[in-house]
């Protein structure tokens, strides 16, 4: 299931948090304001990076300085790269990490 990525499992993120992440709108109380802004930034970059509008940008700047926004954009861009790379070449997580369920 997509909500339970091998990476998340490897990182030791709890199932509850993963589900919360999967349906953020129903679990907004579990995240801080800055986390919610960063997560929205991640979603919009992933689905269509040109949709990052001025209001989102203002919110980002309210919570993060320029260097931190660079960090966020790099993480998001890098994992989009890994996802596309893995999908195109049909690479799945190695068996030993799948077994850890």
């Amino acid at each position, binding site marked *: 299931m*997509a*909500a339970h*990525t*091998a*990476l*998340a*499992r*490897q*990182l*030791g*993120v709890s199932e509850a948090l*993963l589900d919360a*992440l*999967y349906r953020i709108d129903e679990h907004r109380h579990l995240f801080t304001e*800055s*986390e919610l802004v*960063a*997560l929205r930034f*991640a*979603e919009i970059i*992933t*689905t269509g990076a040109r949709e990052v509008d001025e209001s989102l940008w203002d919110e980002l700047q309210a919570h*993060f*300085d320029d*260097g*931190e926004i660079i*960090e*966020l954009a*790099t*993480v*998001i861009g*890098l*994992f*989009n790269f*890994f*996802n*596309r*790379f*893995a*999908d195109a*070449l*049909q*690479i*799945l*997580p*190695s*068996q*030993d*990490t799948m077994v850890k369920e």
Partner: protein
Amino acid sequence: MRLVSHGILVSMSRTFKTVDYAQALDLTCAWATVCSPTICPRNHHLSSSLNKFSKPQNEGSPRYILPRRLVNALAVLAWVAIAGVIFWALGRITEALMLLSLAALVAYVIYPLVKLLEGDLHNMSRIPPVENLALSLQGEPGMAAMSTLFRVMAHRPELAQHSIQLLETTMRTGTVDPKLKELLAIRVSQVNNCFY
């Protein structure tokens, strides 16, 4: 022929109570008239005796001894036939159930094999991972999950090595909480419907 039809109708009237005896006899008469108009029990002696609809009053009459036996025999025959049909149907149902359980058993036995082959197929990326490659993946949690990806990338070792370095720098340095970076990485994979 006439007797047989009469017997069947009368036995029906007895076993199922749907056709009463008088009706049975009437039907027989009608059929008998068609077959051979000269002989019909009703014409001979029953027109007055059947005004009560259940049974003929001249039960003791020798004329009725043979049909009555025949009726009994036919009733038994009919029941035997019905029992035969039921047994046949039960046999077919049992057969189908046996086949189903056999199929279930076979599926149960070969399931691990299928799973194994499926796993093998799923582990095949389009470009095979480079084996026996010392990538510096240790130390970073979450890196082991990505080892296949980097081993595939290792067909160009410098690309793989620099990608690993970029990943490590991205996740470890800076002032943003590393936990938030992990959340972002997971969220991106979720939005991309990617297993990584």
